[in-house]
């Protein structure tokens, strides 16, 4: 009979990692301490398999106020306006419970925005699921969309766009990424860095319960306790109403200057938030778990520390302001409890029932997390795939093929998704979802912000580096066609098991490609999220990086291009380099040939830069400027015609030029009599 594995292994820590904890503390960890390290040093929290490469991204551009490492990236829009942006994944929870998984994903990303001082003004949802022919994927899809709608609409933040991809590798590993954008005046910017010995830490929001505590609790006993396991909900349930109250409360606290620092609670709950607040400011914190307002009785120290109950924030407040903060929270029907005090030194000390249950260097939870440079190896099969390109016939029935492509869920009309999202709230949506990038105005100014989220897992599977470069270029073009300049990127890197060398290779190649393209387009990467271990039964997802691109315009075009503004009698121009042979990973290859092979054409970053600038310029004058991507020129033309209710005559005999997916191209509709110079 073999003994139970030691507690640290039950919590998913390796022996080496455990040894690291012992070294830091100079002793064996208490149960609560071990729980904290185990979660904070998990892949999800510590990025131990990815951190080594993320420094490749640059964010030293003059308009970046805060780069990666904060709760959200912050950029300067001029005239005292700042924008905060972030992207996050909620993949595994959405497979377990699609509605709540997606809903709590929205909740989490919103907190990352308003914890910076910004009012959230938009959400985008890039989604990846298995083919809709399977009932289970339809169930997941409708659940995810309903969850995003249910939470986003009720919390009062418009969902302004997103994208969707269907492929078999996502059936067991759906990907739910959520991006959010917030706006603030510079004076409202606040970070997590606690300061001021004697300042108090106040927990605001929902009562703490046993949400999200998974696995055996080593705090109750040394072995699995099935009874207590049944008490713990494994699915976190979001409460958008609570979040809305929290948003308004926090924004009012900021306006009244009552907050020294603030941190939202996400993974690892109170333990993470207190540690980050303290270490962020180079301080320590004393925390009293008995002060935490609870939803359940009989919670032990570890449970309170590790709970992932939603809709909670930790605010650092001067002692003289505590009463006012509590009063404000009460008026707005938000619960609050004073749970901690900032101290000198660097120790996070946690007390329950008068006993110290944890005393650790606050910074060690994040700064001393393991860092892995896992082995990297290009997959053997890749060169064979490159040597197996889609075989395109000499002639096809273009009309029949086009209809078949438009019938495919990935290319078809997506209004049934975004009409479930309130995308009109705040009277700022100028170009709504269903076009390329969505465009919002900043009321009271002439400024505008555009956002596009783009991913392409099939192409990424065939060549991660080239695909990542092309994704950045495509996202840049999707905001340029609204008249905006690409301004900042947040990236969501969704990959399989990093312990496999070929997955690590995909990851590193992707980072390299993305970083190179962002440099060439002069766009800073101000934040991102890495989701590893999207793998089931040994099968990894296709590598699925998502680029979230923010575009900025000042002034915003008076009449931005939209897909429904084409009128009869206009000309259609195609701008950008034609090829006619770029079919690897294309919609034609996937939908018609059911083929995944060949090597996608490389990006031409210098051309991409010029094409992007050109599109932004033309967008100021023309009714339709539309990115050419999946399904090539034919689909792009069809989309304009369908939305505008017009037809088009194309004088071009070669169907390959109509359907291939050569990058860096857009079409522009030029009304009769328009006077434009053709340049470059």
């Amino acid at each position, binding site marked *: 009979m073999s003994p139970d594995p030691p507690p640290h292994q039950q919590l998913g820590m390796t022996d080496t990692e455990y040894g690291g904890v012992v070294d830091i503390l100079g002793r064996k960890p208490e149960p609560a301490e071990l729980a904290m390290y185990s979660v904070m040093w998990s892949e999800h929290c510590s990025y131990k398999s990815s951190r080594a490469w993320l420094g490749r991204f640059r964010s030293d551009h003059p308009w970046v106020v805060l780069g990666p490492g904060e709760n959200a990236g912050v950029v300067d829009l001029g005239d005292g306006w700042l924008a905060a942006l972030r992207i996050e994944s909620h993949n595994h929870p959405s497979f377990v419970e699609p509605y709540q998984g997606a809903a709590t994903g929205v909740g989490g990303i919103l907190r990352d925005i308003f914890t910076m001082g910004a009012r959230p003004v938009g959400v985008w949802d890039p989604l990846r699921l298995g083919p809709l022919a399977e009932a289970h994927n339809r169930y997941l899809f409708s659940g995810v969309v309903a969850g995003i709608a249910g939470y986003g609409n009720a919390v009062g933040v418009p969902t302004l766009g997103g994208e969707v991809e269907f492929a078999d590798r996502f059936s067991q590993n759906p990907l739910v990424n959520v991006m959010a954008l917030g706006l603030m005046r510079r004076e409202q910017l606040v970070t997590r860095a606690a300061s001021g010995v004697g300042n108090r830490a106040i927990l605001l929001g929902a009562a703490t319960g046993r949400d999200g505590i998974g696995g055996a609790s080593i705090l109750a006993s040394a072995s699995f306790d099935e009874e207590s396991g049944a008490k713990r909900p494994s699915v976190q349930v979001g409460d958008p*109403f609570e979040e809305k109250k929290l948003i308004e409360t926090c924004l009012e606290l900021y306006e009244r200057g009552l907050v020294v620092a603030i941190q939202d609670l996400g993974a690892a709950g109170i333990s993470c938030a207190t540690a980050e607040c303290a270490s962020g400011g180079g301080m320590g914190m004393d925390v009293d778990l008995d002060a935490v307002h609870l939803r359940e009785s009989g919670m032990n120290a570890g449970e309170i520390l590790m709970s992932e109950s939603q809709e909670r924030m930790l605010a650092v407040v001067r002692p003289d302001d505590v009463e006012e903060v509590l009063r404000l929270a009460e008026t707005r029907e938000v619960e609050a409890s004073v749970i901690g005090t900032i101290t000198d030194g660097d120790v996070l000390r946690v007390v329950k029932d008068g006993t110290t249950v944890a005393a650790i260097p606050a910074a060690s939870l994040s700064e001393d997390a393991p860092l892995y440079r896992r082995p990297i190896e290009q997959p053997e099969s890749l060169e064979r795939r490159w040597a197996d390109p889609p075989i395109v016939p000499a002639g096809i029935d273009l009309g029949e093929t086009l209809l078949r492509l438009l019938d495919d869920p990935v290319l078809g009309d997506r209004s049934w998704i975004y009409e479930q999202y309130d995308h009109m709230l705040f009277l700022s949506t100028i170009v709504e979802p269903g076009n390329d990038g969505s465009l919002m105005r900043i009321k009271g100014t002439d400024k505008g912000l555009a956002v596009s989220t783009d991913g392409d897992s099939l192409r990424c599977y065939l060549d991660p580096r080239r695909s990542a470069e092309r994704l950045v270029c495509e996202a840049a073009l999707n905001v340029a066609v609204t008249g905006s300049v690409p301004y900042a990127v947040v990236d969501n890197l969704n990959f399989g098991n990093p312990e496999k060398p070929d997955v690590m290779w995909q990851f590193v190649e992707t980072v390299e490609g993305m970083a190179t393209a962002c440099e060439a387009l002069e766009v800073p990467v101000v934040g991102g999220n890495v989701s590893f271990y999207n793998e089931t039964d040994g099968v990894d997802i296709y590598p699925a990086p998502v680029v979230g691109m923010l575009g900025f315009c000042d002034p915003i075009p008076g009449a931005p291009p939209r897909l429904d503004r084409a009128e009869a009698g206009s000309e259609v121009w195609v701008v950008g380099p034609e090829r006619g042979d770029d079919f690897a990973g294309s919609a034609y290859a996937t939908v018609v040939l059911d083929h995944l092979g060949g090597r996608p054409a490389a990006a031409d970053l210098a051309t991409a830069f010029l094409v992007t600038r050109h599109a932004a310029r033309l967008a100021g004058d023309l009714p339709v400027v539309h990115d050419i991507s999946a399904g090539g020129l034919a689909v792009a033309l069809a989309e304009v015609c369908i939305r505008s209710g017009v037809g088009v005559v194309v004088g071009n005999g070669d169907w390959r030029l109509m359907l291939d997916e050569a990058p860096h191209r857009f079409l522009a509709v030029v009304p009769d009599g328009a006077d434009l110079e053709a340049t470059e």
Partner: protein
Amino acid sequence: MSRVAVALFPGTNCEQDVVYALDLLGAEADLVWHRETDLSGAAGIVLPGGFAHGDYLRTGAIARFSPIMQEVERFAVAGRPVLGICNGFQILCEAGLLPGALVANRDLRFICRPVHVRVETTGSVLTRHAEVGAVLRIPLNSYEGNYVAPPQELDSLERTGRVVLRYVDERGEATGSPNGSANRIAAITNATGNVAGVMPHPERAVEDVLGSADGRVLLESFVASLQPVPA
């Protein structure tokens, strides 16, 4: 200058949009927290859209008991202008200030898109300055926008001309409703025409850049109905 009180419940989210739209039309608006019980300085009241109290239990069910609703009721009874938009309409029905109720959309999905409505009567604070028969393009943004009422109540609404707006298609034809509303009802009023409830959002159609300015005539009608506070 007539001031409009715009009620703010926990969970309301369209209040700033309503203030913006009223401001565009030359009216001054004050946000009033739901616990306020003295609106004597206001010339009219708007209950905006959103999710008051999370829409928990039933949409509008808890909001109707907020202290501010006593004032709303006083206004209603005194014949003074009260407008409920979307969630506001739901609250007015729960409070019994308008008949019927709003339930889940027929297709059980949130609907966010422009719809067309036809003006059925000018006998309400919402449509005083509109023309009967005019077709307006206004956004509908709701999950519980499906108007229901017992048959006798529906008959009474029709007979007494209290249906204010009805869903039509873009040509103005009666081809059904986006959400299953009984008799395609999009907005109703009370017997004295001073309390109106509307499901689509007129404040979201006040500028061409937003896609339509057809909502202006509705809010203008409301502003024109404002009664200055007696000295």
